[in-house]
């Protein structure tokens, strides 16, 4: 009886403000216009064509969201793994200091940090001028390209990769690495045969926790990208807040959520909910 009383208020909150809204979203996605213009409002219906027309119109943004988020997640994994490994195995007495340094930047405004990248990557900035001098930039600029958007996504969601990786690596008994080395595994082989498989829960957790918010993000595309870099988040945001075409916006959201749910359910099946962070 006690555990149910303990979970009741919190779970009720999630039920009422998460599950009910999701259903309400699905209901809205099937509504049709009351009149000919959007301003006349919507009436309940079962207009499934909202889905086909939404998908037909915004398919590129869908694909782009998953593509950009996918690349950003892969980059985040590559950047996060060495530092997570270092903090877990090598940092010894600087362990917590390093963790603080990794987490602290994310206590400063997300919008300002993204905006700061705008300054760093701007056309007359040091980075672009150097790269241009080496003729490494095909478009002569970084800002307002897909590179900048992916870069921003990678940066902004990096802690979601570092923390689960660190948690998972920190749980590995360092003696296992020694045992591998004792059993003729070179450092590289020891890593691939022992550390990597044992850190898999952290890798999967980090990938899920990075990919999902990155795929739904619209701030990076808005601040760092061009109009050709818009992602599904930008579309949903614009449809809901600017255009107010609620059924189309809801249909897009529902489809997006559906794809992510498949990922989440696969993840829970594979790893469970325990491994998180």
């Amino acid at each position, binding site marked *: 009886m006690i555990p149910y009383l303990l979970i009741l208020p919190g779970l009720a909150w999630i039920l009422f403000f998460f599950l009910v809204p999701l259903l309400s979203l699905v209901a809205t996605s099937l509504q049709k216009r009351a009149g000919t213009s959007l301003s006349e409002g919507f009436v309940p219906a079962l207009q499934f064509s909202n889905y086909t027309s939404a998908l037909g119109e915004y398919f590129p943004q869908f694909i782009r969201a998953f593509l950009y988020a996918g690349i950003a997640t892969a980059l985040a994994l590559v950047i996060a793994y060495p530092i997570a490994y270092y903090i877990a195995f090598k940092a010894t007495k600087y362990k917590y200091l390093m963790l603080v340094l990794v987490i602290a930047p994310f206590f400063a405004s997300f919008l300002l940090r993204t905006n700061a990248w705008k300054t760093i990557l701007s056309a007359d900035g040091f980075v672009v001028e150097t790269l241009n001098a080496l003729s490494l930039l095909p478009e002569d600029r970084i800002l307002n390209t897909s590179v900048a958007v992916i870069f921003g996504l990678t940066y902004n969601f990096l802690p979601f990769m570092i923390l689960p990786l660190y948690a998972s690596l920190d749980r590995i008994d360092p003696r296992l690495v020694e045992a591998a080395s004792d059993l003729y595994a070179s450092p590289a082989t020891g890593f691939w*045969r022992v550390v990597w498989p044992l850190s898999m829960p952290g890798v999967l957790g980090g990938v899920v926790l990075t990919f999902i918010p990155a795929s739904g993000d619209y701030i990076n595309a808005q601040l760092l990208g061009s109009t050709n870099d818009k992602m599904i988040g930008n579309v949903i945001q614009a449809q809901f807040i600017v255009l107010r075409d609620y059924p189309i916006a809801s249909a897009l959201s529902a489809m997006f959520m559906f794809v992510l749910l498949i990922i989440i359910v696969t993840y829970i099946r594979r790893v469970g909910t325990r491994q998180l962070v």
Partner: protein
Amino acid sequence: MAADLNLQRLTREFGEHTAVDHIDLIVPQGTFFALLGPSGCGKTTTLRMVAGLEEPTSGHIRLGDRDITDLPAYRRPVNTVFQNYALFPHLDVFDNVAFGLKRRKVADVKKKVSEMLELVELGKMADRKPGQLSGGQQQRVAVARALINEPAVLLLDEPLGALDLKLRRQMQIELKRIQIEVGTTFVHVTHDQEEAMSMADTVAVMNLGKIEQMGDPISVYEHPKTAFVANFLGQANLLKGDIVGEENDHLVVDVHGVKFSVPRSEAPVHDGRIVIGVRPEKITVVDPGVTTLPKNQVAATVIDSSFIGVSTQYLVESPWGQPMIAFEQNRDPTDVARPGDPVLLGWEPRHTFGLDPDEDLKAGLQESVPAL
């Protein structure tokens, strides 16, 4: 001998602290060697240097005529049974045991692994994960995983520490059997003196980064050269006295007016101050007035007696107020002295050993045990 393990001036410092202090040691091929000492004495560090998991500050490690000091762990023909085993939790028993063979791309992995699993009696457990095994089974997997590589030296780092007493005794016999069967050099690190003595051909007692004494278990136990060895390896009564004379190869030592004999060959000094010692099981406890006692005798008062089955252990007080201990074989349990009873202790002079007078009599005693 081709593959003797040879440590030369081996040293490891951690900052200011010297964990292993210029150790010289030869472990002949095929022997069961025990490195015994309290925690923090440097025995595990020594073992890890041999394994290649710790870099020596100075000194050399040789295997036969090969200097392996700078060889990384994964190129050394040496394998380790780790404390708490360090079995790979994501691999089953078969893959754990096959790990080293696969890294060296040895042929016939399957056959070799099943043979090895038979040797450690785990044939049916091949597809279990380590988490599904009992402590004793995990221990065998750890031994099999190391031994299958036919190492020149097998290192065992407190391998039985996690097992309960009964299983530990059983595994000691098992390990000894395996060692004899495969004939590999075993270097066994432990703080359990009974474990070391019951298994090893040679025991080295370590303290503060140095080897205090080394030899076969009987000689080290019977003829300790330092107070630390006397106290750490079993128990000992250590008495401080003066050498006052000599008769037939024996020194006569005066301890607070009581005279004891100690063989001249057992004494490091032959005049002046000396410490003499005797192990408690060498002492016979009788009622005062009994005359058929060995030559070294002292009257005492019983402080406490505890009956522990195979023997009765007495804590007595000598005339000069020093507590002493004596164990009596439990042949006739009705004859137990009570606290307050006056008794006579006696032991043979040949069971007496001598130590340097500057020895700290409390060296090697556990802190938790009241100094006896």
